[in-house]
């Protein structure tokens, strides 16, 4: 009798995490829909999709103000929030899987620092560029430079830590710290050269914001982020295997080196593009995957998709808070994500402390 009960006890919850993960996907998709709707309606102006719909139904065309607010400000902001939130969260998942470290983050391997150096260089040294280049790049110069910075740092990192086709995760982590320090030092030197206006720009870029969202920026960032996110969906099995180490993953038939290459490129693309258009938005990449692992376990099959959905929703919520608390001014979103994220991160650390020996 006892045996049979034990057996049932072991059987019943077995499929739960897979089923839960599927339910979570649905819930998160609905949540993202709701957050998107609210996000479009919240702000200094009372324009909303609702009023726009009512206008349309009543046969009136939208007022110019409403159209500008919705089409030129809120919708691009919504699209960018979804893209950046998904990109940061998925980059976190992939990075953590690759480094077998639940606390790893694109920030740790110097990708964000590289992007920062690129942005700072553009803000301060951009004035020395030929006028032609400035005209051609326009306001996107900072974004392009940040993207290049993150890309170059990943390439250098990869060069340093890959010997004979094998990437050593430990070397990569340490090289990332060194690269991050180097980028930070170079950025610090550049800041000395900055004038007052440039320092203001730097500060706001560093805190991160979706306020600068334009359709133009989205057109540059979206394809890169979409390709990166789509390619990570093929990495689920590899990342699951890599959780037991590269050797075991190889024994299980996973093309380890190719998977690592894809993972690194995807992270560089997604993080680079996200940081480029939105500045330093932290904690999404660490908090989102952790919360989902607590809820549905570490299986990457659903974790990647769910992280993208939750990351997008979370960033939209943070963006709404940043728009509302000091309206009509706004708080940089990086401050909001840090205030929301840092305590969650600490809580995760404390929880892990007992069970994982960390």
């Amino acid at each position, binding site marked *: 009798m006892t045996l049979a009960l*034990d*057996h049932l*006890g*072991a*059987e019943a*919850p*077995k499929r739960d*995490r*897979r089923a839960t993960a599927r339910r979570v996907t649905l819930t998160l998709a609905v949540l993202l829909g709701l957050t998107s709707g609210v996000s479009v309606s919240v702000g200094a102006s009372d324009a909303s999709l609702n009023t726009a719909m009512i206008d349309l139904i009543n046969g009136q065309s939208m007022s110019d103000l409403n159209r500008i607010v919705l089409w030129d400000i809120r919708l691009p902001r919504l699209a960018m929030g979804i893209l950046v939130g998904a990109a940061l969260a998925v980059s976190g998942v992939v990075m953590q*899987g690759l480094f*077998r*470290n*639940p606390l790893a983050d694109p920030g740790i391997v110097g990708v964000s620092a590289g992007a920062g150096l690129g942005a700072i260089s553009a803000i301060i040294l951009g004035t020395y560029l030929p006028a032609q280049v400035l005209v051609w790049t326009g306001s996107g110069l900072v974004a392009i430079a940040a993207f290049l910075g993150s890309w170059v740092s990943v390439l250098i990192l990869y060069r340093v830590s890959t010997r004979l086709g094998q990437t050593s995760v430990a070397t990569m982590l340490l090289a990332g710290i060194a690269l991050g320090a180097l980028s930070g030092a170079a950025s610090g030197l550049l800041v000395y050269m900055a004038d007052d206006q440039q320092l203001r720009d730097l500060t706001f870029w560093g805190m991160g914001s979706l306020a600068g969202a334009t359709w133009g920026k989205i057109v540059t960032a979206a394809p890169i982020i979409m390709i990166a996110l789509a390619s990570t969906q093929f990495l*689920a*099995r590899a990342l*699951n*295997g*890599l*959780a*037991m*180490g590269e*050797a*075991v993953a*190889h*024994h*299980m*038939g*996973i*093309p*380890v080196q190719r998977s690592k290459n894809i993972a690194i490129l995807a992270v560089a693309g997604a993080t680079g593009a996200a940081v480029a258009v939105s500045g330093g938005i932290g904690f999404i990449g660490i908090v989102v995957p952790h919360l989902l*692992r607590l809820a549905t*376990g*570490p*299986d*990457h*099959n659903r974790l990647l998709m769910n992280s993208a959905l939750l990351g997008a929703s979370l960033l939209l919520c943070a963006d709404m808070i940043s728009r509302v608390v000091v309206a009509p001014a706004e708080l940089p979103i990086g401050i909001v994500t840090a205030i929301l994220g840092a305590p969650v991160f600490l809580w995760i650390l404390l929880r892990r402390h007992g*069970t*994982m020996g960390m």
Partner: protein
Amino acid sequence: MQGKSICVNLGRKDILHDVNFKAEPGQVTAIIGPNGSGKSTLLKTLAGEIGTSGTVTLNGHDISALKPWQLATMRGVLPQSTTVAFPFKVHEIVRLGLANGLAAINDELTAKALAHVDLAGFEDRSYQTLSGGEQQRVQLARVLTQVWESQHTDQPRWLLLDEPVASLDIAHQLAVLHIAGDFAAVGGGVVVVMHDLNLTALFADCVYVLSQGYVWGSGTPSEVLNIDLMQQVYGIDLPISKVPKAPIPFVLPQVMRERLGA
């Protein structure tokens, strides 16, 4: 499975020198030798994990020409110990051994594998909270799942085990080696790195003795486990006898205590 002229150097140090190795399906082939003799390196080379200037052939195929997934259908590898970075559950770890990983649903096979390693009912436990010996058996269940799943082809499957009994109690040491023996008995091939000479003598059909990267001897346990060779390789005089009525040698270090007069 055959390895010819295997030379491996890691960094500036030569680990294996011109090792020739042959294992037959249907047999348990053990690799023994002192710490640092190159046993694990040889196993990793046979697994295709480390490159070599020589050749390793598995079921007649040069393994360097095989894709990782092709290798995975022919052999499973159990490392000395496996840490898992995230809080996977036991049944999830075992399911990772399936070709489709966690996306696959084959609870029957995973349940059978867990029961095989005496861990039935552990499905829902968190891997990270298990003892070292239990973790090792979960990993063995994962490896068994991997090789069982591809059993339908007519080529022999291989199990490569690196000190599979190092962290196990005596009952589970015998149980795990019985699993290896059963696997060989139905036509599979087993290559196992061992430290315990008595268990080696009991379960191995063929033994390779490695020291300082060279093969010092190979053959049946009674051919290899002799006082001279053990003295050469381990540097101590090991008293070795044979079981009455059976040609199985055994090592009895307790005798040394008498000899020392203690």
